[in-house]
């Protein structure tokens, strides 16, 4: 019967589970027989679901140690892993389950490197379940303590490569679990990402994706793409590795699927996969990213730009996929002039924006092509479907990227739009959409809004484009038509929209465009101010109190601020007239309040956040998208300047340079002319001087630039070297540290062993000595007792004998004396028998003699007995001495024990010293690391200094340029004044020839 069976048989049916579990845990940790351990583990597994806490607290260590102890026994290992997994499962309904248990389990693994190492080794096992369970455990552990687990796996020998090899498993379950594991493992750890990439992960991912059937391959393909995403996100090194190992064409291959209907059950997943794959593309071309240009070219070379456009303009693609494709296109061409030009030449499938996508798919005519720009404009401006919004926005971004950093493209586009509009062309046109605010565009407010945004990107910060746009006029004056500029048309539309309460998106679109256009452009401002009623309309909108839209009021106020800031005294509505309209009629505080409210509105303040969330939560109705990101940047950059504009005196003009020169003055004196002439010469000279200074400065700058470049490079090299050195040092110290720690640990272990041994030996010796001493003492005691008893007995005996002898003697004496008496009596009484008596007397004498002899002998015997007793006594003394000796020996033993204990103490001190040295070693290591980092930082500071010097120099040059420009302007002015004067003098000469002669001769 198995152990469990026995236990169950013994247990009463309601036996306390806790004690059963405790018994099982005890068996697990103490049993020497594998069968017993296995039975205990099986028992624990059966409790693990319900009694997580009890099983974990008592059994976890034992279970984990089995993983290495019984690693040969597949069945046992399998059950152990199963039990551990059960302990990880969170179970809300179970009071014994808590997140802490899972966390504790995790820490038990991640705090002990060897436990993670064992798990990684199990992933190598050929058994299906062992492999799978080990992977699942690692995933659970990674989820609980990501960074700590990453470090452990990184430290484990061949950790990464062993885990990545699970991807090659032919069994899907294991392979898929492996993918999940690597996704978790690679999250946010650049070094691990690199190591995974070097394990051929890209190749492996693409093989799996292709095996699964590309983007139609289900969720596993999504996981693979997620993993690619993790490995490539903000990891420039992996990106170039990807590019250099020929993975771009394989990525491109994912997009080469047939443009045909996909069954609806598969569509959701395949669209998700396509979007994931596009997201992978976009990681390479994040605007402004390092290596973006190289990646753009590589992707273009692999045909990805073309494939994106095919998907974006396919009747079979849904709008979300089209939108993502267009966003990818936008990133692929952003600020790359070569690609921007190529882009304009590309053709796409023509889709009629006015018919439903479902119908479109059927009517598709593959030969019906148009230029991509036309397709984008059709989509952005004419497709009014609510589902199309993201795609329209993305189309708008494509155009923005097409313009970005490329003035020729912008001017070409603008010219083209102007020409087509002038010709009355029917195709989608930004300009037409801005100017014609008709029924259709009121029904689709984003038409004007998107047209405004596209136009904004065309003219933003581009003086030439602004001039081109400002100069275009409509209407044939000869035919009696009113001639109007674009600004005038737009302002008229804006006023109409404000008065009739059109959708706020229309108003905001126009205002965004006007604000950016008129900023720093006085001629454009003048153009707007030609129509004074527009200003009135803006002012009354700001003043409205009921039902007012904060965004619109704020924007109108902001725009009025721009108008005032860039107006001048000769504007159609001069500054001096404009100021009271704003400061009094509208009210200065009102203005400040509205502009501040705009700035504080979440749509403006948290625009960046909104942009991310907007895409996800889409309710019914129009999206809550009001602003363009470039406009928001513009608003935030210039907010405080425009806010303060109203406090500026009307006499102080900001900009007069474009509108130019003040008019000629009348009644000029000749002295003035002369002084002007002299001034002119001075200026000339000054100009000359400034130009040479400028030249030398320029030279100096170039030199400086060269030098700084060199220093920068050197510094960079140094930094790199320092970094490498730091890294090397770190590694070296790590190794040393580890080695030292190892050594110290083993030494400590040794010492501990030694201590243990010595302690044991000492106590053993002490014990033995004590035992020995004890027994000896006991023996001696016994002997002493014996001899004492003997002495006592003998003494008693002796005394009896003496007594007896004495009594005998006395009796004899008595007898003799009585006999003597009777003899004397006889002698007295009987004369006759004197002879007899004398004979008797002789006899008696004889007897007396013998008696005396007997007495003597008795006395002698007493003496000899006394001697014996003395001897016994001395023998006892000797025994006493032996006893003392034994006791002193015992004392010595005790001393020896004390000495051993002192030795133990010494060893412990050594141990502590070793630990201290370990700690010191660690701190030195940290210090060195710190120093290296400091030196790196110092180098960076130097680089920054050089940069600052460079910018100083450039600043100086700019100033010089400015001065030069100014003197040139002044020179021009003087020339004109001089010309006027000369002309005037020519006229004067006729009337006052004498005066002139006088002046000349004088």
């Amino acid at each position, binding site marked *: 019967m198995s152990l469990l069976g026995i236990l169950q048989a013994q247990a009463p049916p309601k036996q306390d589970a806790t004690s059963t579990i405790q018994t099982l845990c005890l068996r697990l940790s103490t049993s020497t027989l594998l069968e017993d351990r296995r039975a205990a583990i099986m028992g624990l597994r059966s409790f693990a679901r319900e009694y997580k806490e009890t099983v974990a607290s008592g059994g976890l260590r034992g279970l984990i140690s089995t993983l290495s102890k019984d690693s040969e026994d597949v069945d046992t290992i399998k059950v152990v892993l199963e039990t551990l997994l059960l302990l990880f499962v969170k179970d809300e309904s179970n009071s014994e389950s808590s997140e802490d248990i899972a966390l504790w389990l995790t*820490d038990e693994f991640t705090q*002990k490197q060897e436990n993670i190492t064992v798990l990684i080794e199990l992933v190598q096992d050929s058994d299906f379940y062992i492999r799978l369970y080990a992977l699942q455990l690692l995933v659970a552990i990674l989820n609980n303590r990501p960074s700590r687990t990453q470090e452990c796996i990184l430290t484990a020998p061949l950790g990464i490569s062993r885990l990545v090899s699970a991807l090659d498993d032919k069994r899907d379950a294991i392979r898929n679990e492996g993918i999940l594991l690597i996704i978790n493992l690679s999250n946010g750890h650049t070094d691990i990402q690199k190591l995974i990439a070097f394990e051929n992960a890209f190749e492996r991912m693409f093989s799996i994706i292709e095996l699964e059937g590309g983007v139609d391959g289900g969720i596993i393909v999504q996981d693979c793409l997620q993993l690619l995403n993790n490995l490539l996100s903000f990891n420039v090194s992996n990106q170039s590795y990807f590019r250099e190992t020929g993975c771009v064409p394989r990525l491109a291959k994912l997009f080469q699927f047939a443009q045909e209907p996909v069954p609806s059950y598969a569509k959701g997943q395949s669209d998700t996969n396509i979007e994931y794959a596009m997201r992978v593309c976009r990681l390479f071309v994040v605007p402004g990213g390092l290596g973006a240009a190289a990646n753009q070219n590589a992707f273009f070379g692999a045909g990805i730009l073309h494939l994106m456009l095919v998907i974006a303009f396919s009747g079979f693609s849904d709008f979300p996929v089209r939108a993502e494709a267009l966003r990818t296109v936008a990133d692929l061409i952003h600020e790359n002039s070569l690609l921007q030009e190529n882009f304009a030449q590309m053709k796409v499938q023509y889709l009629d924006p006015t018919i439903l996508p479902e119908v479109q798919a059927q009517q598709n005519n593959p030969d019906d092509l148009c230029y991509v720009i036309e397709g984008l404009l059709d989509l952005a401006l004419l497709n009014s479907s609510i589902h199309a919004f993201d795609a329209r926005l993305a189309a708008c971004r494509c155009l923005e990227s097409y313009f970005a950093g490329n003035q020729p493209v912008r001017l070409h586009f603008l010219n083209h739009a102007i020409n087509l509009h002038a010709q009355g062309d029917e195709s989608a046109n930004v300009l037409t959409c801005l100017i014609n605010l008709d029924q259709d565009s009121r029904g689709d407010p984003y038409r004007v809004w998107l047209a405004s945004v596209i136009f904004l990107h065309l003219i933003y910060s581009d003086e030439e484009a602004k001039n081109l746009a400002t100069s275009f006029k409509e209407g044939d004056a000869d035919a009696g038509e009113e001639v109007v500029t674009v600004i005038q048309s737009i302002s008229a539309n804006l006023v109409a929209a404000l008065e009739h309460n059109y959708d706020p998106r229309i108003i905001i679109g126009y205002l965004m465009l006007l604000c950016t256009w008129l900023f720093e452009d006085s001629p454009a401002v003048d153009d707007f101010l030609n129509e004074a009623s527009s200003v009135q309309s803006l002012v009354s909108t700001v003043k409205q109190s009921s039902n007012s839209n904060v965004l619109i009021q704020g924007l109108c106020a902001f725009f009025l601020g721009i108008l005032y800031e860039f107006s001048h005294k000769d504007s159609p509505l001069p500054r001096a007239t404009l100021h009271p309209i704003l400061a009094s009629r509208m009210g200065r505080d009102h203005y400040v309040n509205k502009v501040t409210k705009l700035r504080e509105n979440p749509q403006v303040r948290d625009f960046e956040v909104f942009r991310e969330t907007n895409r996800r939560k889409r309710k019914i109705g129009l999206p809550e998208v009001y602003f363009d990101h470039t406009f928001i940047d513009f608003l935030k950059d210039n907010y405080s300047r425009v806010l303060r504009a109203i406090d500026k005196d009307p006499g102080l003009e900001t900009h007069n340079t474009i509108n130019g020169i003040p008019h000629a003055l009348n009644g000029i004196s000749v002295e003035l002319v002369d002084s002007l002439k002299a001034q002119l010469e001075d200026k000339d000279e000054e100009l000359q001087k400034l130009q040479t200074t400028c030249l030398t400065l320029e030279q100096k700058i170039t030199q400086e630039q060269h030098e700084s470049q060199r220093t920068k490079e050197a510094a960079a090299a140094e930094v790199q070297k320092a970094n490498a050195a730091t890294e090397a040092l770190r590694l070296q110290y790590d190794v040393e540290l580890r080695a030292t720690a190892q050594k110290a640990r083993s030494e400590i272990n040794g010492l501990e062993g030694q201590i243990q041994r010595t302690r044991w030996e000492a106590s053993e010796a002490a014990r033995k000595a004590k035992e020995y001493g004890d027994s000896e003492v006991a023996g001696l005691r016994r002997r002493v007792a014996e001899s004492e008893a003997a002495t006592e007995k003998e003494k008693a005996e002796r005394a009896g004998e003496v007594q007896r002898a004495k009594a005998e003697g006395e009796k004899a004496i008595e007898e003799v004396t009585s006999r003597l008496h009777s003899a004397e009596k006889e002698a007295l009484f009987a004369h006759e028998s004197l002879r007899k008596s004398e004979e008797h007397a002789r006899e008696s004498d004889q007897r007396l003699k013998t008696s005396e002899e007997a007495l003597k002998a008795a006395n002698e015997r007493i003496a000899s007995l006394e001697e014996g007793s003395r001897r016994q006594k001395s023998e006892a003394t000797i025994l006493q001495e032996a006893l003392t000796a034994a006791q002193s020996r015992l004392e010595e033993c005790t001393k020896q024990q004390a000495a051993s204990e002192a030795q133990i103490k010494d060893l412990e001190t050594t141990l502590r010293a070793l630990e201290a040295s370990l700690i010191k070693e660690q701190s030195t290591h940290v210090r060195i690391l710190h120093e290296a980092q400091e030196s790196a930082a110092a180098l960076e500071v130097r680089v920054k200094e050089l940069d600052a010097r460079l910018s100083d120099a450039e600043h100086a040059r700019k100033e010089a340029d400015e001065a030069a420009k100014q003197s040139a302007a002044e020179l021009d002015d003087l020339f004109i004044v001089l010309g006027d004067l000369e002309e005037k003098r020519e006229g004067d000469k006729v009337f006052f020839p004498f005066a002139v002669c006088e002046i000349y001769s004088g």
Partner: protein
Amino acid sequence: MPQPWDYIAKVVNIGDSGCGKSSLTIRLCEGRFNPTHDVTIGVEFGSRIIPVDTSPTAQKIKLQIWDTAGQESFRAITKSYFRGATGALLVYDISRRATFTHATEWLEELRGAADANISIILVGNKCDLGNDKREVPIEEARAWAEGNGIKAFVETSAKTGEGVEEAFVDCAREIYRNIKSGVYDLNDKSHGIKTNTAKTSLSMDEQTKVRGGCC
């Protein structure tokens, strides 16, 4: 299978390394003492059921004791166990003043991570060491506890067992008082408090049975 307790409460032991947190846990849960210092790696846990009063029908609280490591290097790990703790033993060593000074930092860390209603007990351990070794006077510790809003203070010896039961029982009772006065939302799983639903319903059955017998 009904469990012999009515509530589970999560309690954490915190304090400097070597002040005796593990020793207190071992004394309470296993009734023994280990004179060597086995540094805790990360965290350990044990449990013990404590009746809230002396009557035989007293409700029972199972204290789930999380014994954390005091060493600085485990701070990041141990902190994640503070969350959801219902009670805490803040331990210092009366023979090492530094462990008492650090109590302030421990308390701060605990209050930052744990629930606002956590029941904290200040525990001065190793009181068997005698007055010549003492570096923290009782009065000072008590005053500090009061000053920092800690309701209970006790001195213990894991070695002799003195005060150990008392410390944990105090903690269990305060938790029980809090349960009864409705401080915790027992349905909120994030709390370190759980009710034994099986037991509660069972004991109600028993009550009705007893009452039935009386009538």
